[in-house]
């Protein structure tokens, strides 16, 4: 690049000597006066629209809801005695520890790797896309992605799909013997509390299943005639308009293909399945008392995936959506930083025989560190401000578990309660939380200067 150097204006002296009170700045880059034109526009705007509101909030945080009476640190006391704040604080810690580092790391890796592919622009464009979608819409996307119903949420659809590859669904999910039909539920299934001897015909009324879902081949249920040597019975769906409960009414159909077990002394001694009319028969049990059991496998509820938006997974889930959104941000700036790195440094290292990993770790990362720092600090601060995502993604019932400080501030100050005092106190706390990030920066500046 060429540096255009103009002739020094007449009367100015190059050099480093300190000689104030001259109309022309004698010391390039060393005087406040030279800084003025560069800084004034920014400072005016910041003072009027950012610093003034900040001071206003600080003052406001010591006043009550109406702003009329001074309450001292009352708002702060309320804040820290509210268990919601503690949850929010805890979640903020998780966010800050996990999310920015992850996104900066991903951004760095992707930015470096994309230098090696031809479709780098396409890749960056793809990762940039989520940034171009409003947070509200992104929130709705992830609300749906993680929806519990596998017909709606793509994650659970995949989870359930994979699960169902390995296990067959049960024929009658959710069905059970009618209450009072003397069957008790246990892990293995529904076992009759009464025992039966061969020669009996047992009626087993089933409920909790849609009549329309019974296999088409099912026929009317009726009690089989008893036979002295056999334990027989019928299992039918005891549901019909105007039907009596526990009785075989007209139009009630048998339940085919149901696994029935004969149990003696806690051991399964016979197994059979019901026919199309719902009848079942144990032909050769031998004399004795047998309990009947309807195996649990008949009724197992289908696997529905995980409750992603439940209280335990909600914060990781929201963080994952934030990562989806913000990686594009990190990659863009880190790529910009990479573009500004002098190629000679990298080439020199490569010529010296460094492996790619060594180049990355010893050259690229150190040279990128100013950008990485900007990205990381910005992400930390962005994380502290996250609230739309939490508000939109977390169902109301787990909002408390997913709470973060920025969301609480929003609700306190602008929920219909409109307590600007308490809201301002939260804002001040939020501001103070960033102190570590700022201190970190100051120290870094110092090091740079020295």
């Amino acid at each position, binding site marked *: *690049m060429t540096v255009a150097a103009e002739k020094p204006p007449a009367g100015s002296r190059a050099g480093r000597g300190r000689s104030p009170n001259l109309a022309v700045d004698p010391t390039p880059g060393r005087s406040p006066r030279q800084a003025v034109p560069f800084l004034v526009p920014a400072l005016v705007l910041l003072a009027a629209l950012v610093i003034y509101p900040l001071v206003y909030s600080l003052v406001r945080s010591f006043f009550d809801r109406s702003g009329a009476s001074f309450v001292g640190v009352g708002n702060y006391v309320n804040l820290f005695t509210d268990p919601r704040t503690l949850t929010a604080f805890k979640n903020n810690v998780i966010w800050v520890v996990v999310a920015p580092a992850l996104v900066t790391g991903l951004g760095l890796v992707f930015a470096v790797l994309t230098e090696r592919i031809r479709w780098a622009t396409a890749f960056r464009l793809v990762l940039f896309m989520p940034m171009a979608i409003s947070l509200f819409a992104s929130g709705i996307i992830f609300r749906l992605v993680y929806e519990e119903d596998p017909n709606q949420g793509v994650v659970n659809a995949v989870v359930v799909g994979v699960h169902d590859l390995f296990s067959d669904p049960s024929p009658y999910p959710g069905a059970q013997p009618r209450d009072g039909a003397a069957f008790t539920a246990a892990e293995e299934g529904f076992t009759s509390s009464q025992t039966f001897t061969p020669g009996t015909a047992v009626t087993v009324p089933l409920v909790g299943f849609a009549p329309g879902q019974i296999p088409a081949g099912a026929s009317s249920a009726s009690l089989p005639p008893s036979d002295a040597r056999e334990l027989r019975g019928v299992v039918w769906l005891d549901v019909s308009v105007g039907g009596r409960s526990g009785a075989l009414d007209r139009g009630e159909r048998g339940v085919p293909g149901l696994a029935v077990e004969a149990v003696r002394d806690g051991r399964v001694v016979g197994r059979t399945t019901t026919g199309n009319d719902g009848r079942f028969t144990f032909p050769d049990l031998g004399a004795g008392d047998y309990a009947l059991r309807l195996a649990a496998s008949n009724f197992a509820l289908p696997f529905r995936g995980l409750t992603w938006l439940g209280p335990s997974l909600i914060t990781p889930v929201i963080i994952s959506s934030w990562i989806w959104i913000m990686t594009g941000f990190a990659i863009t700036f880190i790529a910009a930083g990479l573009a500004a790195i002098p190629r000679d440094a990298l080439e020199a290292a490569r010529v010296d025989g460094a492996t790619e990993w060594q180049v990355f770790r010893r050259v690229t990362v150190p040279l990128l560190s100013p950008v990485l720092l900007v990205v990381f600090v910005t992400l930390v601060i962005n994380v502290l401000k996250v609230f739309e995502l939490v508000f939109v993604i977390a169902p109301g019932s787990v909002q408390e578990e997913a709470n973060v400080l920025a969301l609480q501030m929003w609700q306190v100050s602008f929920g219909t309660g409109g307590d600007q005092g308490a809201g301002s106190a939260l804002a001040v706390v939020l501001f103070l939380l960033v102190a570590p990030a700022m201190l970190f920066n100051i120290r870094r500046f110092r090091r740079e200067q020295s």
Partner: protein
Amino acid sequence: MTVVEVSVTGAPRRGVLSRVVSRLGNGVVQVGLALVALFWLVPVFGLLIASLRDEASNTASGWWTIFTAPTSLTLSNYADLVGNSTVLRSFLNTVYIAVPSTVLVVVISALAAYGLAWIEFPGRLWLTTLVVGLLVMPIQVALIPVAKLFGSLGLFGTITGVVLFHVAFGLPFAIFLLRNFFAGIPRDLVEAARMDGAREWVIFRRVVLPIAKPAIASLTIFQFLWVWNDLLVALVFADQDSAPITVALRAQLRQFGTNIDLLSTGAFLSMIVPLAVFLAFQRYFVQGVLAGSTK
């Protein structure tokens, strides 16, 4: 820029083997990145399908069911929005708000960042820290104080007011970014220019700005994006005539339900411009590379 020491132990290993490994490695990288891109695209693709179905279909089944049981996809969501004159007018308003906001932020922050990075004056460190600290200021906190200010200045309901707000709140990040970027420019370059007697303004324009092009390009992209997608500031400070697209889309939403059909359609329509801006500025990254390598 900080001096980097590269110490490499062991003999150079650049034989045939390592080249094979690097080829293979490249293949792995390609596949890996393709998978990552796919992962990122899935939700966007789902959103695209949602925008092509009506609310009832979207709530009845997931978007992937179009593969197994193709339902009728329709462009009517788009037709409704594009045919809506309010939405079209708001599109223009968004441009009127986003372009000046972006230009002003970039110009003002570049000046300030130069001042903070390369001109020494007492309290510079603290001023820098203060500006960076302002990054954390949440927009909501400023609404009421700024409303009072705008109320007394008569800026309520004007595009100017909305732009000023965006500029002020875009500055901390922009200054932070550019200051760090500028500070990384080799000191010799700047000092050499000074020795030649160049004025600060000239150094800024001829030395610093060209090197910082990639950073400025990415700043432009994001500043534009943030303003483009803003709802809150516009809702509060813009009136009906100056309302941007986010506000107009908001007005289309039904009271209940996910509104995913409308949101997705709106998202795709309003995504076009930011993506175009991204592509337009992306090429400056390449220029940055050239500039860097010829040093």
